[in-house]
């Protein structure tokens, strides 16, 4: 028997009410759920014994529930949200080759994702996949790296389409650059971490360029880069 007690909401606002009732206040503020309200996405919310999960366009937003607390719409501690990106076919596709999984991920970007520049991005990823496949000695594009990259883009609205390349290990290298001192590059690692570099005008002396680099989780990347005004040139 399925251990999930599945609740399908006819309207987003039922989900929103559930979240904002105090049971999961953080979920109510999660951008994907907010976005779903405006774009009428299909979504599901599921309770299991230990978790509540929202599944919105293949993105799973999961929050742990205190088992001592009855399943109720009230009184729940605000634990950190665990955000993962899984395409809807992940569990089904154990038998697919890496190449087939990459193609499915690209199809998902093109047809199923909420990314504003989905078509352009899918073309770029497809080109990279083709050049990697031309060389029989090359491994395929790192699936987990691509998944983390897509998750970042889906969670960050209004970004411009980046230049996308691959590292020697076939991880995604994304770059937003409009000038030598307006440069943001990130490598999405399969582990969920992201290496990034920012070149940005110094806040006191715009003639000077601040250059910084770091390592953070893919889901913290946006808040890490925001103080450095990256979105001034990387977003629309």
């Amino acid at each position: 028997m399925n251990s999930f007690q599945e609740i399908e909401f006819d309207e987003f606002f039922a989900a929103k009410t559930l979240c904002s009732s105090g049971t999961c206040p953080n979920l109510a503020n999660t951008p994907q759920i907010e976005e779903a309200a405006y774009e009428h996405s299909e979504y599901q919310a599921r309770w299991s014994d230990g978790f509540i999960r929202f599944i919105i366009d293949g993105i799973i937003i999961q929050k742990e529930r205190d088992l001592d607390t009855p399943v109720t719409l009230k009184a729940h501690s605000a634990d950190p949200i665990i955000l993962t990106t899984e395409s809807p076919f992940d569990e089904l596709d154990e038998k697919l080759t890496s190449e087939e999984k990459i193609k499915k991920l690209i199809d998902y970007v093109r047809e199923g994702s909420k990314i504003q520049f989905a078509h352009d991005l899918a073309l770029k990823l497809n080109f990279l996949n083709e050049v990697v496949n031309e060389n029989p000695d090359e491994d395929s594009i790192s699936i987990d790296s691509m998944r983390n990259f897509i998750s970042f883009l889906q969670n960050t609205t209004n970004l411009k389409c980046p230049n996308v390349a691959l590292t020697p290990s076939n991880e995604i290298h994304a770059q937003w650059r409009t000038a030598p001192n307006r440069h943001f590059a990130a490598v999405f690692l399969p582990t969920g971490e992201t290496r990034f570099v920012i070149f940005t005008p110094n806040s006191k002396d715009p003639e000077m360029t601040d250059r910084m680099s770091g390592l953070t989780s893919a889901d913290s990347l946006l808040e890490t880069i925001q103080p450095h005004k990256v979105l001034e040139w990387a977003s629309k």
Partner: protein
Amino acid sequence: MKGDPVPGKDHISRYCAPKTAPDGQPTGASFMPRKEHDFLSVNWMEYFDKTDQKAQIAKIREHIELSLARNGLFAVLNVGKVIDHIHRVGEKKLAILHEPTQGDPSHSGVHGYQHEDLLVAELIAEIVIEIYPSRQT
């Protein structure tokens, strides 16, 4: 001789596979050493010819021990500028050393950084001075 520094006034070229430069311009990914390598592979341009850059690239195409993709490119860098720029901005001391192989006598290496040093790779990408196609047009 193997291990000698390449003179600072000379130039090196880096072959950039299409996956690292898909838009026809090198990116930081073009200058990331492979995880299993201790240095970034490059070619010493003046090894073959002292002045003519096109002739140098032609010789490098002839000897390089890689299969050159149709959409790949060679990025040209000044040795002294690479070392100075990374030292000043990236706070790393690089060394560019001649690492000839039997088939590729101009083969050289940029030592002093690893695959993980994204900042160094991005800093090198911003001081590329010339680009040539990977194959003769």
